[in-house]
């Protein structure tokens, strides 16, 4: 049963935009992507240069010590035993070999331990660094980016992709390097022990190279696909867990399961392709190794037979040969993790390379204390290229004024609010605060000055007090409670089982919708901005609560700039000025009572609203 992905997901304006700009699929950008990934890797490793040098030194020491083993065995057999046999009882050589062996063993033990601990530390530090960088970058990216990238993908990047990098870091990289080193040094020893046999061994190299080349190409593609497939699984998972009420209430379970099975199976298939590659690659390496060993055995036996080499040399050679091909197995394994981690790193590099479309200014204008004088000058705005929402808007809101914006759904009220809060930048024209273009303000200055409350009022899991304190993290408990009291939320909060310390759970689910809205209000009041934007922020409140909020607003908004968007005209009454918006244009502008008297659109709206009250 296959679910047609397109049919249920629907068509979006830019499906490709779910990728970051850096991950477009064409050949040229793949090359660019690799370069970016390498740069990212470089910048991750650079701070640990010194530690990495120590790591490599430890690794070399460990490798040397490990290599000494078989050679000492050879010495023991070829040089240690003859003096003991045939009546001569001379153990000095054997004792010397034993001592050397003991030293080698202790060295190997100590270096291995030091190496593992240190490289583990470095690996964790790199992961921490990468996590923070990616997280911070996501936070810096615009709302528009998040709207198309979706939270599920953000989660995928920061969980599953990190997992695959961490897998490489804690399981692999050391063995990768170690195995590589041991292959090289064994090759040298082999040459030194018996070069004709070594040359025979080296005949296997071209095969190994060709195999590896093939694997690298194929697996890079395969792992890229697994990263995309797992992201889809995560997106679907996160979304269905988030909307479980709707899922249950509308018996969505079977259909959801069908879709999940499809994405889950897709992920399985992607993984299978990748795993089959390594399942072919690794035994092929083994095959090459085994054939080589058999050939060398025969050839070496032949040479020993003709006295061209010693038996001890043959034994040592074969031992080393195992040491040569065994790590190749590991090498292939870790090559595999590396490919998987690289695919993940590519995704992360893509995210990190995504430029914030609402960037912070390079040379910001300071605005320590905003007065709240807002001006929109010739503002033109369209969300995604196509339809223009605001065509040319001029608007001046002097500081301290409370402006109500009314108009039909889709008129562009929220868009104005979002422009003033700089969720987006206008395509043309400017939005200024106290004469400073918002694009020239630091995020800190802007956010201190402008705060927006919407009907979405997202709450974070954590206590009620923490959620209110989100408005101003340095606020004390008393200030938090004062803010709650001011908008009439104090009573219900105190009635909660643990009062202000009650955990509101994910997305504030522990509270009723109206209660959430009150907390969101308290949060905004505590922030105490110069410009407050309320976008249908009271829609879930009952009339008495709304009235309380209204009363609070009257005092609070007295000395600050406010934009109030509401379809309940009761909210509008506190405004000094009303704007009626239609299709992105201001069609009426004036004090509320003046507009009522003028008998225009607002008067009609007002009448409709009055009628709805009875």
């Amino acid at each position, binding site marked *: 049963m296959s679910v047609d992905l397109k049919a249920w997901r629907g068509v979006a304006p830019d499906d490709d935009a779910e990728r970051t700009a850096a991950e477009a699929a064409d050949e040229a950008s793949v090359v660019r992507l690799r370069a970016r990934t390498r740069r990212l890797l470089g910048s991750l490793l650079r701070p640990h240069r010194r530690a990495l040098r120590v790591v490599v030194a430890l690794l070399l020491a460990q490798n040397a010590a490990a290599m000494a083993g078989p050679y000492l065995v050879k010495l023991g057999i070829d040089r240690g035993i003859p003096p003991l046999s045939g009546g001569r009882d001379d153990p000095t050589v054997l004792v010397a070999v034993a001592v050397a062996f003991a030293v080698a063993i202790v060295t190997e033990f100590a270096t291995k331990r030091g190496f593992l601990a240190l490289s583990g530390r470095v690996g964790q530090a790199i992961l921490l660094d990468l996590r923070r960088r990616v997280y911070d970058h996501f936070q810096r990216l615009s709302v528009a980016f998040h709207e198309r990238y979706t939270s599920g993908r953000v989660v995928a990047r920061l969980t599953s992709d990190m997992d695959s990098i961490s897998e490489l870091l804690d399981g692999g990289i050391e063995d990768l390097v170690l195995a590589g080193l041991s292959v090289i040094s064994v090759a040298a020893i082999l040459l030194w022990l018996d070069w004709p046999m070594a040359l025979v061994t080296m005949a296997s190299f071209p095969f190994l190279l060709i195999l590896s080349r093939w694997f690298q190409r194929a697996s890079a593609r395969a792992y890229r696909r697994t990263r995309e497939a797992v992201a889809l699984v995560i997106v679907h998972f996160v979304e269905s867990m988030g909307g479980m009420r709707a899922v249950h209430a*509308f018996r969505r379970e079977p259909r959801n399961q069908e879709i999940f099975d499809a994405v889950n199976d897709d992920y399985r298939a992607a993984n299978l392709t990748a795993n089959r590659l390594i399942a072919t690659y690794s035994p092929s390496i083994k095959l090459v190794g085994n054939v080589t060993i058999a050939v060398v*055995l025969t050839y070496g036996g032949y040479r020993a037979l003709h006295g061209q080499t010693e038996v001890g040399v043959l034994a040592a050679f074969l031992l080393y040969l195992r040491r040569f091909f065994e790590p190749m197995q590991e090498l292939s394994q870790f090559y595999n993790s590396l490919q998987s981690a690289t695919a993940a790193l590519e995704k992360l590099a893509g995210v990190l390379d995504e430029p914030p479309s609402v960037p912070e200014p390079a040379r910001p204008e300071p605005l320590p204390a905003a007065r709240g004088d807002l001006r929109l000058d010739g503002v033109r705005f369209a969300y995604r290229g196509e339809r223009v929402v605001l065509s040319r808007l001029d608007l001046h809101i002097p500081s301290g004024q409370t402006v109500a914006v009314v108009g039909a759904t889709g008129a562009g009220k929220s868009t104005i609010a979002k422009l003033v809060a700089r969720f987006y930048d206008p395509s043309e024209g400017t939005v200024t605060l106290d004469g400073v273009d918002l694009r020239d303000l630091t995020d800190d200055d802007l956010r201190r000055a402008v705060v927006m409350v919407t009907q979405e009022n997202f709450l974070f899991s954590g206590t009620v007090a923490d959620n209110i304190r989100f408005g101003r993290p340095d606020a004390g408990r008393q200030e938090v409670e004062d803010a709650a009291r001011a908008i009439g939320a104090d009573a219900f909060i105190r009635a909660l089982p643990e009062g202000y310390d009650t955990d509101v759970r994910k997305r504030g689910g522990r509270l009723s919708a109206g209660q959430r809205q009150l907390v969101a209000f308290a949060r905004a009041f505590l922030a105490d901005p110069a410009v407050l934007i309320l976008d249908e922020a009271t829609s879930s409140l009952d009339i008495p609560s709304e009235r309380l909020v209204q009363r609070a607003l009257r005092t609070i908004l007295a000395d600050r700039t406010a934009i109030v968007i509401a379809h309940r005209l009761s909210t509008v009454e506190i405004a000094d000025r009303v704007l009626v918006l239609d299709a992105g244009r201001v069609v009426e502008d004036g004090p509320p009572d003046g507009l009522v008297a003028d008998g225009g659109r607002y008067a009609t709206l007002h009448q409709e609203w009055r009628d709805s009250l009875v």
Partner: protein
Amino acid sequence: MRPYLNQMVWLLIAAGAATGAGIVVPLVVRRVVDGPVRHGDATGLLTLGALALALGVVEALLIFIRRWTQSASALGMEAELRRDLYAHLQRLPIAFHDRWQSGQLLSRATSDLSVIRRFLSFGLIFLVVNTGTYVTVVALLIHLYWPLGLLVAASAVPLFSVSKRFTQQYFKASRTMQDQLGDLATQVEESAQGIRVIKSFGRRRHQGARFADGARRVHDTGVSKARMLANTWSQFDLIPNVTLALVLVVGALEVSRGALSLGGLVAFVSLQVMLVWPIDALGWIIANGQEAMTAADRVYEVLDTEPSIVDHPAAAVVTPRDVEGHVRFEGVRFAYPGAQTPVLHRVDLDVRPGETLAVVGATGSGKTSLVSLVPRLYDVTGGRITIDGRDVRDYRLSSLRRIVGVAFEEPTLFSMSVRENLALGRSDASDAEITEALAVAQADFVYDLPWGLDTRVGEQGLSLSGGQRQRLALARAVLGKPRVLVLDDPLSALDVHTEALVEEALARVLKGTTALLVVHRPSTVALADRVALLYDGEITAVGTHSELLATVPEYRAVLSASTDAVSSGHLLEEGAA
């Protein structure tokens, strides 16, 4: 899991055979050294060389077969477990999802399952194979020369004690790590979903610091895990090396005594070297196994949670057509799981077939809780709710939720096409039905979207306005003509004009449908035949709007806009005059 068990057996056989082939090679080496080389037998050498070649090819082939099938079966198992987990999560009640952070659920469905898969595809096999190799090699060593063989066998004792200590420590550390990763995933999800709030308050750095704390905790656990690994793995390296050194010394003495041939010692040592990797890998396998065990623990924590809202065996299958829609609440009591005080103490209500009853009450009085009980999103803790005299718990869930249509106060839209969002579970909804539902909700705007009904509405429908989302949610509720409608504050985000239009269309639907309607506004109350006032967890008054307005002061307080608003309306008019 059955079919996988069979495969597993085959895999073990293949793996064992491959390892066996690998073990035999050193014996061939011994033959070569002791036989042809010593006796100058060239043909014997060729035969043995061919044997080594054959063994090598067989080994590689067996490994190939094992890995090829193994990846399929381990991935199949992982996918199946993930599917079961998802299916189970969908069965678990809302109360469960209220409590569990989705990041924790997600980390179980992804990281934990892949840890388990990795163990199944490598760890488990190698645990068996390596133990087998170890035992076989030691047995062979004892057979070759028993005094040295016993020496090698004795090295198992320290190995065992090292792994035992390691196992205990590591188990705890991996659990901590996986839980911390789950918390981190939760934080990531929250800050992606709450990005607007974070931006609007400029709390990027605040959130960043919180995330950094979480990431730092993961880091610390990771570092302490690395330290454990360093300790243990280096010991796993040390023990076989020490044994090898002892064997060499003792072996040399034995050779000099003539108790052992030179070729015998060479074979012994080269066979013993075969132990290095299995023992080395043991450290990795144990770590992997511990991680898989904690992961399995975490997954089974969820899988072992019994769904509490399920069909009982005798539950009836009823089609909406056979339902009149007589809804009764009989002494209903409800408390959220874990809460001390109930939200609803004693609710008695009788909604006659086709009647529309408005539920009115202050913010937080329990209206949403009350209506959630009808489609059994939660189960009552006392009393019962019946539809046509039958307890809702006696309906099959699939029937009940088909009979009852719901619109939540916060409309949830999924990142799917409009059509899919409307139909949700009803994939059989016809275009005509969808058109009709959209008309009722006055949601014609969907036809103006770039791809009409096929347009994907973004995550949580965020690129639609609140009013648009609410109308889609309403359309979804009325789609397919449920017999009982539960509408929780369905018009709160609409402007007055649209609200009037929706009310008009909705009134026609409500005529033939039993409905529970949570409302805040007098205008919406007009849709209802009667109104019930929810106050202090009880229904304190039922009657028509004007009756209650006249006789019940609490009702007046909650619903009457007149006092404040109209008087200020007068002010407006006076100002205008």
